[in-house]
């Protein structure tokens, strides 16, 4: 609040004196730019450090995806997909206050729709793939709109249960249909070369990065716009937003449709990476993951979902990979904790601790702490 004094003396229209554009941009985005730059360089940097080419290893006449760099590329592609899923969930749940338990429906539709088009439509793979992506955008936006319309009648937990029912239904059907290859899942092996993770993983990595950055910018633009303020007003009190004169349904639909399409695109990326679409993509696990990561990262913050996804994903990777075994001998009982086997227990404990120590999520608590320190500093300066 360094401009309280200015506000006091001037009318609000005069308060805003814009400094040069590039300085505003740099001051606001230096961290974003740094992260994107690191992510662009990352596969090459890992390749350079470990000596494994980021393009994979040559075996005779073929290139296979082996080595450290391609291994980490796969991990980051999965992280990009999850981050987009969580960010989209946060747009709906964190910013607009709509709780859905069926968000994985859109994630799964992304994987399945592209898979079905690519596998069954006997045309040029490039054409099939692009048609699949467009189909996903179409289906997810229509379905998001329909489910969003139901939020007019169903509020809060009833809406959440309804979405859960729809997603579980899709999960059951996907597991039993011939078209989706039942529980085995649909193998996706007719991808064009440029997006096949077994042939050009680095390209998939950069496409994933582009999707991640685009999703972040779209959500950021949306929540910083006037519509974003209405989203937050709806989250705080929908009746109040209506009483001001807002057709809140329209804003909720906007939020739900954008979230649905982004989740669908994230699902495409996951389907490509796994080269298959399995019923798990539609399962409640992905929705719960998105919900938990949103809470752990910081509900209604832009960076929360990203920090939460990266933190948990890397933590899980480390715990599952570690060879730590803790043993506690109490005479009668012997208690052993094997990190790589009991990883889910470890993650659970971390969840509990994070929620207790960071009640507003990692990013949310950090923002509050920073604001409080700032306030304290201002008051100290004002009194001395």
């Amino acid at each position, binding site marked *: 609040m360094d401009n309280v004094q200015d506000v*006091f003396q001037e009318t609000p229209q005069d308060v805003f004196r814009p400094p040069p554009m590039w300085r505003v941009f740099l001051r606001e985005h230096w961290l974003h730019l740094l992260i994107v730059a690191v992510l662009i360089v990352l596969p090459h940097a890992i390749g350079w450090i470990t000596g494994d080419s980021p393009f994979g290893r040559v075996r005779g006449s073929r290139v296979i995806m082996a080595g450290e760099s391609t291994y980490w590329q796969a991990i980051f592609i999965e992280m990009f997909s999850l981050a987009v899923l969580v960010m989209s969930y946060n747009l709906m749940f964190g910013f607009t206050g709509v709780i859905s338990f069926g968000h994985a429906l859109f994630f799964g539709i992304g994987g399945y729709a592209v898979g079905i088009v690519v596998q069954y439509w006997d045309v040029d793979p490039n054409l099939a793939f692009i048609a699949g992506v467009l189909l996903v955008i179409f289906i997810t936006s229509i379905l998001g709109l329909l489910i969003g319309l139901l939020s007019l009648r169903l509020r809060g937990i009833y809406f959440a249960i309804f979405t859960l029912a729809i997603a579980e239904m899709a999960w059951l059907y996907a597991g039993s249909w011939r078209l989706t290859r039942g529980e085995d899942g649909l193998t996706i092996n007719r991808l064009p070369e440029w997006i096949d993770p077994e042939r050009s993983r680095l390209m998939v990595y950069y496409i994933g990065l582009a999707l991640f950055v685009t999703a972040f910018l779209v959500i950021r633009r949306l929540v910083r716009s006037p519509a974003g303020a209405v989203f*937050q007003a709806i989250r705080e009190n929908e009746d109040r937003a*209506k009483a001001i*004169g807002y057709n809140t349904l329209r804003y909720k639909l906007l939020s739900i449709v954008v979230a649905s399409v982004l989740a669908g695109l994230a699902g495409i990326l996951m389907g490509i990476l796994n080269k298959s679409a399995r019923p798990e993509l539609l399962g409640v696990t992905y929705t719960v993951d998105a919900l938990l990561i949103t809470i752990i990262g910081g509900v209604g913050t832009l960076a929360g979902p990203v920090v939460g996804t990266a933190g948990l994903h890397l933590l899980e990777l480390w715990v599952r990979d570690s060879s730590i075994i803790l043993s506690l001998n109490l005479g009668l009982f012997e208690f052993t904790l094997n990190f790589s086997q009991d990883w889910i227990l470890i993650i659970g404990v971390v969840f509990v601790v994070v929620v207790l120590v960071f009640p507003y999520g990692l990013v949310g608590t950090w923002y509050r702490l920073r604001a409080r320190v700032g306030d304290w500093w201002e008051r100290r300066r004002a009194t001395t």
Partner: protein
Amino acid sequence: MSAPLLRVREIDAFIEQFHILEDVTFDVPDGGITVLLGRNGAGKTTTLRSVLGMTSVTSGDIEYNGQSIVGKKTHTIAQMGIGYVPEHRAIFSELTVQENLRIAARHKDDLPRNIEMIFTLFPDLKRLYQLQGGNLSGGQQQMLAIARALVPDNRLLLIDEPSEGLAPVIIEQVIAAIKALAETKTVLLVEQNFRVASQLADNYVIMDHGQSVAHGVMASLSQDDEIVQRYLGVGMH
């Protein structure tokens, strides 16, 4: 006498199975302040919410500016020029003062056009412009809630219990502000504090057990001890 701005005719309203309003009938004349008086649970807040379509009216009619608004959607009614200041200082606590005001604008130029008027009424808000609503004091939040209803060019303001839970000195400020804004707008006020109501209002409507039981000019009510005793309890200053 000109036609009333708001005509409420024999409305009935339910909340779940409870019959809250029964045959409520009153007029709000164009201009000035009309106050809804009555004990707790008499149906005053429900009446305001019914006007805005937030509680559904099962029978009867509400006319605003000659047009029936029963059954219309809340946001449509609000857009016709009715501002609502709910009880408990209903601001958006996570938005700043500026965002709270900006979100209320219906046209781009609403806020720039009315901001000087708002700052004249509530000079405090100018100082607090960039602060989050949740960090404001109770009185400041009440002022922000009223200010929010002044951003668009509303003709009628529904204000619910503006003095509730505020310190006497703040109440004086709120009274002065409502008096000032009533020079250009019509106000329908719900107020428990009889002293506040009698300072502010031109007309009164008394509600009791979900019915409108008396109405008239405020100045005459202050003299009429019998009605005051019967419907508003005893010992009202």
